[in-house]
């Protein structure tokens, strides 16, 4: 039996049926009652109330939720999902990834490819097959990796598969070589930096510095239509909820216990007979997949995807969302992402010179004095 097979088996056993909480009874016990109320209440607000306020209420009313709020809100929800995914690997497995933006961006690019093809002949150059940027690069036909990208299902699959595959391969090599701690973080920075350089190249075939933009429709629905917009918003909220529940189930199971043990004392766990590689690899890949889908929902709402999403600084910011919200709590990072991005949108208008000061101070203050983040602060208040 090869080492690979052995590892997959151990992975399988850790996920085996009896250890998962059973559906129905299990779901109710996932969160304490009050938390469930808040979570479901927030979801109802986002997925039901906001669409109603956006579509049914006239623009002149004070209750109307405008386009700006919907697109900004959708963007923040996608970011919150990424923060959640990051918390899964950092808060629960102790893997500080400073390259998670890469998985987010890859999902975004996969969706972007579909959206570019969906423009059809309405692009500037009017070519029914080739996107504009390929026409001006004088390419005569689609490169092989673009074949079939006009099919939504194929690209949707790619949205999940591309980041997961990359994460799996990278994680496989990294965890097997027992790269940990700061080394791992630096290597993830190098990875996202390398991909960013690659995608900045026009010859790579992903639009270079301009990226993908000028989208017209998704699955036939025009993107400029408020109904499409708010549907994407509601979908982002839904995906966040699904990811939250899945992550929660995972961390509350036996798998989750082993995971936190790995976070706290990996060598000891190894000596106990578990192979940490399988556990880490699983959450790492799952996290990448969650980010990929978030990216795919982000791109049609924001209207552009470009290689600066893969910049090392972006990925470090994700870490601060998690740290501010409260590491290892799943709900905290969602709050952290919302707070910081809300503050960013506000400060870059109200006092643009102050924004970077605020962000820098936030990093220092949170790591120094608020190791449990805002959520930790709230919980302490409770006691």
């Amino acid at each position, binding site marked *: 039996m090869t080492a690979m097979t052995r590892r997959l088996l151990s992975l399988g056993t850790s996920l085996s049926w009896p250890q998962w909480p059973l559906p129905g009874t299990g779901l109710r016990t996932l969160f304490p009652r009050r938390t469930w109320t808040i979570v479901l209440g927030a979801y109802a607000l986002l997925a039901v109330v906001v669409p109603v306020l956006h579509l049914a209420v006239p623009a002149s009313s*004070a209750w109307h*939720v*405008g*386009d*700006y*709020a919907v*697109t*900004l*809100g959708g*963007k923040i929800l996608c970011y919150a999902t990424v923060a959640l995914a990051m918390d899964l690997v950092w808060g629960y497995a102790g893997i500080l990834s400073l390259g998670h933006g890469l998985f987010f961006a890859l999902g975004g690019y996969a969706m972007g490819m579909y959206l570019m093809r969906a423009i059809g002949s309405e692009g*500037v*150059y009017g070519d029914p097959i080739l996107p504009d*940027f390929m*026409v*001006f*690069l*004088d390419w005569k036909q689609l490169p092989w990796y673009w074949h079939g990208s006009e099919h939504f299902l194929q690209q949707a699959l790619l949205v999940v598969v591309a980041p997961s595959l990359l994460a799996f391969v990278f994680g496989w090599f990294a965890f097997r070589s027992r790269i940990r701690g700061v080394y791992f973080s630096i290597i993830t920075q190098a990875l996202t930096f390398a991909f960013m*350089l690659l995608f*900045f*190249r*026009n010859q790579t075939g992903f639009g*270079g*510095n*301009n*990226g993908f*933009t*000028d*989208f017209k429709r998704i699955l036939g629905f025009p993107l*400029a239509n408020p109904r499409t917009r708010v549907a994407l918003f509601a979908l982002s909220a839904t995906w966040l909820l699904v990811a939250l529940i899945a992550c929660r189930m995972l961390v509350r199971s036996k798998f989750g216990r082993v995971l936190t043990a790995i976070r706290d004392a990996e060598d000891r766990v190894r000596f106990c007979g578990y192979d940490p590689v399988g556990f880490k690899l699983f959450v790492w890949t799952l996290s990448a997949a969650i980010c990929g889908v978030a990216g795919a929902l982000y791109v049609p709402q*924001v*209207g*552009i995807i*470009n290689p*600066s999403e893969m910049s090392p600084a972006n990925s470090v910011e994700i870490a601060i969302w998690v740290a501010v919200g409260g590491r290892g709590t799943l709900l905290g990072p969602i*709050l952290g992402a*919302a*707070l910081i991005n*809300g*503050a960013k*949108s*506000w400060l*870059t*208008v109200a006092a*643009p*010179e102050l*924004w*970077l000061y605020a962000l820098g101070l936030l990093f220092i203050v949170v790591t120094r004095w608020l190791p449990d983040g*805002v959520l930790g*602060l*709230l*919980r302490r*208040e*409770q006691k």
Partner: protein
Amino acid sequence: MKSWKLASILSSVLCAALLGAPPARAAETIKVGILHSLSGTMAISETSLKDVALMTIEEINAKGGVLGKKLEPIVVDPASNWPLFAEKSRQLLTKDKVAAVFGCWTSVSRKSVLPVFEELNGLLFYPVQYEGEELSQNVFYTGAAPNQQAIPAVEYLMSKEGGGATRFFLLGTDYVYPRTTNKILRAFLKSKGIPESDILETYTPFGHSDYQTIVAQIKAFGAGGHTAVISTINGDSNVPFYKELGNQGLKATDIPVVAFSVGEEELRGIDTKPLVGHLAAWNYFMSLKNKTNSAFIKRWKAYVKKKGLPGGDSRVTNDPMEATYVGMHMWAQAVQKAGSVKVDDVRKAMAGQTYAAPSGFTLKMDETNHHLWKPVLIGEVQGNGQFDVVWKTDQPVRAQPWSPFIAGNEKRAEK
């Protein structure tokens, strides 16, 4: 229960940020949006455009404003982040309800806001030289199209006066403006009978700083004689490029370099003595001697002093700043003529607008193609960071946003 209070405070802050401020009072001012990066990589270039825009607004207000109302600038910082550009432009148009937006620099930023302006029927004034291949009814382009900058520059290089170049090294940063410009130039050179073997095209990434290999390549290519370099290197990278050129002994008299993205602002960070003789092509230079320009520069320097802007006396004026200035004045004139700030009315009134620009020429907004008629000036770098004009067109040149050198553009109509 404290946590509930905290939670409710936090969520209301969030909601306030999302839903925005209460509706504005009755407008006594006309709001104008300024969409330039004040932080991030593009801050270096774009901060001056924000400053000159604010100065122009002050100037217009001092003369009584527009339609009897004062102009109110709304400055936002998209922080060199392209998705943020789209978000901020949506905010300016829907929340702040600005009458027009002056902004953007890179083509990416413009392309990311274009769908927003077209969807919400806003008006954008774009002041930077660019690659063309675009014509939106919601944008007025006050910067040069390739036929108002690149092509005349190459013609000058090929002329006897410019050195009679027959071999061309096309060097650019890897993004759409250099690629499109080089594509146009290749077709142009081909039409002039220059063989493929006498053209070499290379690209470096943004922020590239080690030009040793590239300069060695230029030297090797230049061994064939009568060589010129056409540089579309953008931003910061120009500094290490010119430094390396100078240090490796490549003088302008050996192999001249003409750049399309290097102006007075970019030269502020370099010791220009080794660069004397290298060229730039623009529609305006700070060193132009005429009354309008002297007044413009004087006003700018006074503004810098008054606001205590960093850089003080060493601040310069350049082509995109002049384009912002002209664009704003033209817009104000159009609003005055149309009698309203409604975009459709202003758009009609913009056609044919003229303005006596600091370049010493009277610029006209073309009736149909949303571009300015601009003069072409070729300048040589001087030791003090300024340019000496060595060639210029007699009259402003009409823009061709759809370059005739790109296949397929013959079918394009200019609405």
